[in-house]
């Protein structure tokens, strides 16, 4: 037990916002991100207004493919609550990682997985109802670090289904839109490794 956990174990039940470095809270979506519990046994929850039927269908699809962060916990007064890993964090604020290694999850791995994730998001209602992700990608995709070799480390954050927009663009046009968006959001971190994202986007399993 760390010294900080020792201190906090004596505390009463609390509910506090997650530190901004980690937080997925979004005023646009009315999405909250809080740590709640007693002392050292705090759990992290994301809550947001229950989505409509179309968005719910997308969310169900993401859950069935294990692409959504955490687990559905409950719905109380039209707010859906998900329990999520305490250390999950938005990919947007991360530093550049170019290190190569069998046990290193570098930016090439991350953007390949991001490509796969957005492609899978696109077909979550089927190939004929293609949806485009219209929100900020870096703030709605979560990294869970320290995973076993075969485990997934990148997930869409609960509530990201609300950014789904039906699209009639062809796939290449959508890919171009994503590339531009990623350049704007990630700047130099995305420079030179666009191909990793493209490879992921074009190779994703259905």
């Amino acid at each position, binding site marked *: 037990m760390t010294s900080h956990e020792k*201190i906090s174990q004596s505390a009463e039940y609390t509910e506090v916002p997650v*530190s901004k470095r980690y937080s997925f809270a979004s005023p646009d979506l009315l999405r909250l991100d809080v740590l709640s519990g007693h002392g050292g046994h*705090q759990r992290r929850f994301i809550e947001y207004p229950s989505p409509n039927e179309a968005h719910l269908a997308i969310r169900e699809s993401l859950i069935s493919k294990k692409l959504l962060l955490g687990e559905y916990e409950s719905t109380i007064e039209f707010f859906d609550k998900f329990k999520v890993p305490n250390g999950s964090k938005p990919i947007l604020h991360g530093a*550049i*990682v170019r290190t190569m*290694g069998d046990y*290193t*999850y570098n930016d090439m791995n991350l953007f390949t997985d991001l490509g796969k994730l957005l492609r899978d998001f696109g077909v979550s209602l089927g190939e004929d109802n293609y949806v485009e992700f219209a929100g900020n990608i870096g703030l709605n995709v979560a990294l869970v670090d*320290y995973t076993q070799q075969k485990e997934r480390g990148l997930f869409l954050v609960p509530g990201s289904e609300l950014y789904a927009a039906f699209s009639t663009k062809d796939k290449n046009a959508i890919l171009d839109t994503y590339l531009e968006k990623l350049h704007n959001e990630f*700047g130099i971190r995305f420079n030179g490794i666009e191909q990793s994202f493209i490879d992921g986007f074009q190779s994703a399993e259905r």
Partner: protein
Amino acid sequence: MERHALEPSTSNNSELIPNFQNLERQRIEDFTEVVPKLDARLLNVEINLSSKQPKEEAINTFMNTRIRTGEPIAYLAPEYHKLFNGPMKFEPYKSQGGKASRHGVIFGDLEFNEHESISIAIKPFQQVEGRAKTELECLSDYFGNAVANSFNLGGLEPIGIIDDTKNNFYSLTVLQRSLDTFDNIDWSDFYPEFNNNLGMQELWLKAAHSIALLHSMGDSYHGDLYIRNIATNPEGWVFPIDWELGEFSCSLSRDFEERYAERFRDLKQLVRSMSIPVNIGPLSGAGIFMEVRDDWWNAFNDIFFAEYKSWRMDLASHGHHRAQILFETKSEFDQLELDLRNELTNLRQEYSLYSN
């Protein structure tokens, strides 16, 4: 959100270490191989917080009581020793974190009793300058964390030490998956508009509190205060980690200059790792001041130093011998400001060409 356009680069030192990929694989293979052979022994050394040198005292106690059998041994802290009563197995993790570690820290699950496991961080110490020195460095890491934890300074939870009887020692701590170190954060947009980044600003203010507290505690210092060794977590705590080179003592040494030198070294390391751009090789930093056109000192003062000073002065004004401590602290700050200004001037001359 736009980021300033430095060349594509890395904030991880390991990119430029030759054969990092092979080194990482080798470390993990070595550790995976030794784990099933381990003989678990109890490491039961009480930390004496009233000692002038609690870390050294603990290391000496351990050295005087350890046993060598010629077989690989895991010396485990009491709360972990009782868990391991059968064969162990190691399953490595892939990660983003820890890649800037000087020692090449690795992470994974230590599995025991078939169905139970614990997530651990392993810091390898490989023999370079003799077995005794390597062992001492490993013990310094383990007991550094143990003492920092005892003082509530934020050390990682130590599990134990492994001696593989060949060339390697390992210091084991509990992996706190939710910890993030400052070198894993992109600071390129942070300054000068730091009032728009209140979350990031808060991290530095808390770092200032944490380091001020350490430096106000007798003779204590960290010894390796680069941003890779400052951690935060979802609760918003900020604290130094990795206390291998740290010293702790609640009593003041007689030598004011010695104390000054250690604190200045801590802050100099911090300043360097804040200042150096992200794209310049093994000593890459956070590049926080890259957008600052004038004096970097003012930026450092805004972000960290003013808060650090305020806390140090406040802490000095309490307790016994406060008149003398206040006088010494004021003198210390006169010198610190001068030396850190010079350091930042030099850093700016050296690195400002990397900015836009």
